[in-house]
Each structure stands twice: as C-alpha cells, then as structure tokens.
C-alpha cells in the first residue's frame, strides 16, 4: 500500500489538470483510499500517469540485427554493471533488452508498444520482451506485405482474409496490426517499390496499396481490435510525399487508423535540393479527420539507427548516406532494412526534418490525437524524449536552436512562426493519456480508481523545459521502481495481447499453403500462450 500526498496531479483522462490531491495505491491499482502503508511526500512535484510509448522498436530480429552490425555504438554507450538484482546491459542508440527496461523506466515511461514484428520472428520478439524488465509491453504484427493476405485480397476473398488476419494475430500473440509501405515490400523483392496508391502492386493485377490499406483497416475494425490499423504510409522519407499521405487519409475515410511517425511523411518539394516542410497542409487535413491518430516520429540531431520493414527506403538511404546497410528478406511476410544514420544540424534536409516533427506536434490542435515519439531508434533514441519535451514547452529555447540551422532551411519551414508552448497537462496527454487511449489500454494513461498504478513524479522546476529530464520517483504496478535516478526494484511487466474471434477451420486452409511456401512447419509457427510470462488478453468482443 502506498499513498502519494501533496503532489500536483495531472490526470487529463479524468479531467484533473494540475490539482493538488492524494493518490492511493493498493495491489498494483489506484484505489479511493488506503489505511497505513508507506507514504511519499510529493509536495513540489507533479504526478503523471506513467509514460506510454505508442510506437517504438525495442525487441525482435531486426533490432538484434541492428545491434549486431554496430559494435562501435556500444563502446561509447552507458553501461549497466551487473548487481545482485540488476542484469548487465549497454545503452546507446539500440540498448540491449535489460538496459531498455531500465532506461525507459528511468525516464518515467512504463508501457511500450513494439511496433513492427514479422510473425516469423514473433517468438524471438516475445523472448526479448520477456527480458525487458519493469515495462508492460504490446506488439504489432506486420501484415501489409503478407503474401497470403494479399493473395486473398487479390481474389476478393475478404471474409477469408479476415479469418486469416485474426488467426495470424493470435498466432503471433500480438496486440494489433502494423502496415508498412503497403505493397512496397512485396515489390521490393522484384527490385521495385510501390508509390502510387491506385496502381497495382508488382506481381498483382488488382491489389493496390490503397486497396491493402482500406482492406486491412476494415478487417481490423470488424475484428474489434483495441488498436486500429497502425500505418506506415507509402513513400516514407521521400521529398513530395505529403501527397501520398493526404491521399492515404482519404482512403481511410470512415475507418479508424493510427498514422505512424508522421514527420517522415510530411515533405514537399520534388527532390532533395528542394525539400520543404508541408506540416501546415498535413496538420490542417489531419485536424479535420477525427478518425485518425498519429505519432510524431520527430528527429533529434545526432546518431540514430534506421530500422524498418521498409526495405526499399533503406536502400535509398544507404545510397544517400554511404553508411553500412543490411537488407533482410522475411519469406512471404515482409522485409527489413537497417542503416545507421546521423542527423546533422548543418544538413538542409535534416534541419527541415527536425522542424517538421516539431511543427506537426505544434500545429495539430488536439493533443489527444498526436503523440510524442521519435520512432525510436529511427529519429533518435527514446531516452532523448525529455529534449523533445523541452522543445515543445519552451518557444524561446526553440528559437535558440533555430539559430544553429542553415539560413536556407528556415525558408522551408514554418517553425520560426509558431509560438505555441505545451502546458504540463498537454505533455501528460501526448506522453501517456493519449497513446494509452489510442492503444485501447483502459487501465493505462490515467489515475482514476481501478487504473494500473503506473506513475511518474517529477520535481516542479521554474524553467519550463527542464522539468522532465528525470523523474524523482517512478512507480510501476504500485511498486517504487526508480527513486532519485536509481533503479530500486526490478519487476516483470505484462504483455498485452489481443484475441480476435476466428473460425478454427481456417487452419485447414492455411496448413497446405504453409507446407508449400514456408521454410517452417505449420505446427511450429504459432507462438504458444505458455511462452509469455504474464499475458494479459484483450478478448475483442464485438
């Protein structure tokens, strides 16, 4: 039992915006009151629901590959030395599993959503997520280039496609569905890409990227999954791609969807020399479409690691940057590319990208629909979120940073004209309440009675931007896990998985297909529920 007294509570989901009140915790949940037990005097602190990362990459085969090809990053990374209750690990741009848990918790985040899991590597991903301590986790499976699903869409068998999608989600013990560059990765296997939403995908006659997007979004809505289609649009990172993003929004009309790392999809211009921000146009369209949520995918200057299923984009990036490159083919399901990258202030393109991330966060009016991410590790490490918060909270600091950019870049962005500053409650929304709601995690992101007792306590500081640099206390499921910047307790988090309804007969359809095209036997494909240490199943009732 734990009582937090005297803190200024920010619980926007319950309409509490900076009110001094007590928070009581028993058995890992928020309760109306407790008798006895420990109490924390939080006078002079703000009390937040624990952070929720709606889009991050922390586990699985691709992350492991990224770790493997960059030994140089670990030589200068933070080291976690083994102690009797803490495992060893290394930080840096792609932290090891144990370090990932310590670093997220150390920043005040308690729930993360691993946003890209090929079903073939789901087992590996769950094993790694098991080794990420403290945090609660969920994962999304890649579906928009799955050739079994695409073949069914080509044949117009939407009902069977729905059964297959549901079966695959449960097989992967996933929480939702991610679509990456719909059709583009299938095409990449023939050396092509998919850019136009209405043109057939390489190797298909009827299936277009637009058809994949609307088909999957519809299936996911019909299956009543807690989180809508999580979409990485076509043409990521390409100058002039805002057209594709706007068109995608039209395709999604009438459906729920979450647009991932929107920053990478908001560019104008017709080449690298003319790249400019189209955040204004995109934000305007987005503001008008309440069926959508998005995360920023902001970039921060410095080292990053681009890891994505979007294989063709990584090839482009490798050619542009000359940095090392890995390309992975994941059988019939997806692909993967990895390129380490450094965002530089003096680069015109990078300067515009940096501005676009902030512009979207500032121009999208409703903080309940845009969330704080860097698409870790693509735009910068998640442990740099406090830097991003400072940029959102402090317009003067933003102007200082703008002075360091190439003057030419300033003409291609609107950031210098934006004066909006995020309030403390708005920060609580974009880092916790909003993403929890978008993920459909009803016990996360708020401090109402019955919610999971995941909290972060930050010391109130006069300087607007610096308050969130590190929390004084982090509480996970009612236990104090971080105190004064030190890990105090290492707990095991839960894994959220969804169980959409499907007809068991679908296995009779899938089994022969598997025997024909997969390297793995059908019986070894699905991840057993017993593999997950603490599964938390969302039943998806219609």
């Amino acid at each position: 039992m734990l009582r937090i007294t005297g803190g200024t509570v920010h619980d926007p989901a319950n309409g509490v915006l900076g009110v001094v009140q007590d928070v009581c915790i028993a058995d890992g949940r928020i309760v109306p009151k407790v008798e006895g037990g420990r109490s924390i005097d939080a006078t002079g602190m703000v009390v937040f629901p624990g952070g929720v990362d709606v889009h991050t990459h922390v586990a699985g085969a691709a992350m492991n590959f990224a770790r493997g090809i960059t030994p140089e990053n670990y030589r200068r990374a933070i080291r976690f030395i083994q102690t009797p209750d803490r495992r060893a690990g290394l930080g840096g741009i792609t932290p090891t599993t144990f370090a990932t848990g310590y670093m997220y918790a150390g920043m005040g985040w308690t729930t993360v959503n691993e946003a890209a899991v090929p079903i073939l590597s789901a087992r590996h991903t769950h094993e790694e997520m098991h080794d990420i301590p403290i945090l609660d986790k969920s994962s999304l499976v890649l579906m928009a280039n799955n050739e079994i699903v695409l073949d069914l869409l080509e044949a117009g068998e939407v009902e069977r496609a729905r059964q297959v999608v549901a079966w695959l989600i449960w097989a992967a013990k996933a929480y939702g569905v991610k679509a990456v560059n719909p059709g583009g990765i299938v095409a990449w296997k023939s050396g092509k890409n998919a850019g136009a939403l209405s043109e057939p995908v390489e190797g298909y006659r009827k299936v277009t990227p637009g058809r994949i997007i609307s088909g999957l979004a519809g299936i996911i809505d019909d299956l009543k999954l807690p989180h809508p289609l999580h979409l990485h649009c076509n043409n990521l990172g390409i100058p002039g791609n805002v057209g594709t993003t706007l068109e995608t929004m039209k395709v999604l009309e009438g459906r729920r969807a979450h647009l991932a790392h929107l920053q990478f999809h908001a560019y104008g211009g017709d080449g690298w020399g003319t790249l400019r921000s189209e955040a204004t146009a995109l934000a305007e369209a987005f503001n008008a479409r309440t069926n959508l949520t998005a995360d920023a995918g902001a970039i921060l200057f410095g080292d990053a690691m681009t890891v994505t299923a979007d294989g063709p984009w990584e090839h482009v990036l490798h050619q542009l940057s000359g940095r090392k490159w890995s390309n992975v083919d994941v059988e019939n399901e997806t692909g993967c590319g990895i390129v380490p990258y450094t965002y530089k202030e003096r680069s015109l393109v990078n300067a515009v990208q940096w501005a676009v991330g902030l512009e979207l966060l500032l121009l999208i009016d409703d903080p309940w629909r845009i969330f704080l991410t860097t698409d870790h590790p693509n735009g910068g490490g998640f442990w740099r979120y406090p830097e991003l918060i400072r940029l959102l909270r402090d317009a003067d600091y933003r102007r200082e940073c703008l002075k360091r950019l190439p003057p030419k870049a300033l003409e291609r962005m609107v950031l210098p004209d934006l004066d909006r500053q995020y309030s403390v409650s708005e920060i609580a929304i974009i880092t916790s309440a909003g993403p929890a709601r978008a993920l459909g995690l009803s016990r996360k992101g708020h401090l109402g009675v019955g919610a999971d007792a995941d909290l972060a306590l930050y010391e109130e500081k006069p300087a607007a931007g610096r308050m969130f640099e590190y929390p004084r206390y982090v509480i996970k499921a009612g236990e104090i896990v971080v105190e004064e910047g030190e890990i105090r307790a290492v707990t095991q988090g839960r894994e959220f998985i969804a169980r959409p309804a499907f007809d068991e007969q679908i296995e009779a359809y899938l089994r022969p297909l598997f025997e024909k095209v997969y390297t793995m036997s059908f019986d070894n494909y699905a991840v057993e529920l017993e593999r997950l240490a603490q599964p938390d199943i969302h039943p998806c009732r219609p």
Partner: protein
Amino acid sequence: MPTLTLREQPNVPLEAESLSPDVMAGLGLDAIRALPVYLGKRQRRVDEFFEVAGTTGDALEIRGDARKVKWIGRGMTGGRIRVTGNAGMHLGAGMKGGAIEVSGDVGDWLGAEMSGGRIRVGGNAGGQVGAACRGSLVGMSGGTILIGGTAGLEVGMRMKRGIIVVGGRARDFAGLEMLGGTILLGSGAELRTGAWISRGTIISLQPIPLLPTFSYACTYNPTFLRLYARHLSTLGVSLPHDERDGAYQRYTGDAAVPGRGEILVWKPRDS
C-alpha cells in the same frame, strides 16, 4: 614515478585501463595498489598482479613481460608511461595526449582510434596499429606511432590523420580504407597495401607489390616530404627526400573506391 613490476603472468588477459597517468595522478601508492583491474569478469586489485613501488607522479613505469595486460594507457590525455618489457593489446587505444614508450613488443590495436600523443615501440607490434575498432568509421585521428620492428595486419586501417612509422616489414593490408594521414613503411609491406584507400599517403622505402587498381602517376620528390623529413628527424626517423639520392614513384588509387590516395615508393638513384 610509480613503478609497477609484474609479479606473475595472469592466466587470462588482464584488462588494466586503470594503468594510466590520468587515473594515477595524485594518488598515493596505496591507492594505486587498490585500483581495479579485471581478470575476466572478476574485479581484482592492481597489487594482486604488480609490485608497486617508487614515488607518485604523472609518469608511470611498468616492468616485466606484460604481454597479457591489455588497455594500458587507454584514453590518456597526458603524462608518460614507460614499459620496460612487453605490453598487451589496446596499448594507448583512444589516447589523446602524452607519451608511451615500450622497449619490447606490443599486441594488436596499438593506439587504435588515438587522437593525439606519441607512442614509441622498440620491438614489434601486432595488427591494427592506429586502426578503427571493428565497426567504427574512423581510426586514428591524430598523434604519432613509431614502431622499430615489424607490424601486423591492417596497419592504420581507416586512419584519418597522424603519422605511423613502421621500421620493419608490415603485413597485409597496410593503410586499408585509409581516409588521410601518413604511413611510412621503412622495410616495405606484404600484400594489398592501400586497399580501398580514399585519401592519405603511404610511403614505402622498399619496393612493394601493388594492387592493379593503383596507377602510376610520375616520379618526383614531393615538396611536402622535406617538411615531413625535418619533423621526423626530430623523432629519430630518417626520410630520404634529396633528388641526388633518388626519387619517389607515385601511384594513385584505390580506383576500386574510387579514391585519391597515394603510394610513394622510394627509388634510389643508383638502382
């Protein structure tokens, strides 16, 4: 000056980055004795392996066959280390300043990714002298490494600045993926010297086998070599540059990159 005498050979390599003037400056002998070193994953004390004597100061002497002692002088920024005997891998890796002198042989990764200071080795060196650590984009970015004897594979791999002098013969891939700086090979090298070199200068005072992706440019005595010769003479290295003695054949490459590096091969007048 504290003097550390190796008492017994460790059974596995000893990681001893605490053996550095930066760490020891201002410490009494007892504090030096208690400094941590790692034997495998176990933390041990310096005096479990070394006899510590002498006086305190920013110079350090290590005596004995320390070929299994790694990371001596890691990242040091000043002061001096004198090794009377041999030293292990990663000696002076990442060093930024100061001087290291070794009378005997040293292991691989001597001065890897160093950015300043001077290392002088009387005997032979292992591979990857002044190189980039595995995965890194840039190796040595400044400073001087002088080796009296031979050197192993990949001398100066991805080095960007600084000078490496190898008195004896170097093995394969000297100057691999070099980005800048100078390598002086006193007795030539084995195969594939300068492979994938983008920029920088490799000087060989003996004929060496060249890759087919290097093309002959001219025979001359570059003006800048006089400056180098004057600088190197202060370090006890002699570099011929007088046209009465001979001239350098200049080869450019590596065309496989394509790069704009050069290999200068000394040709005495009489031959």
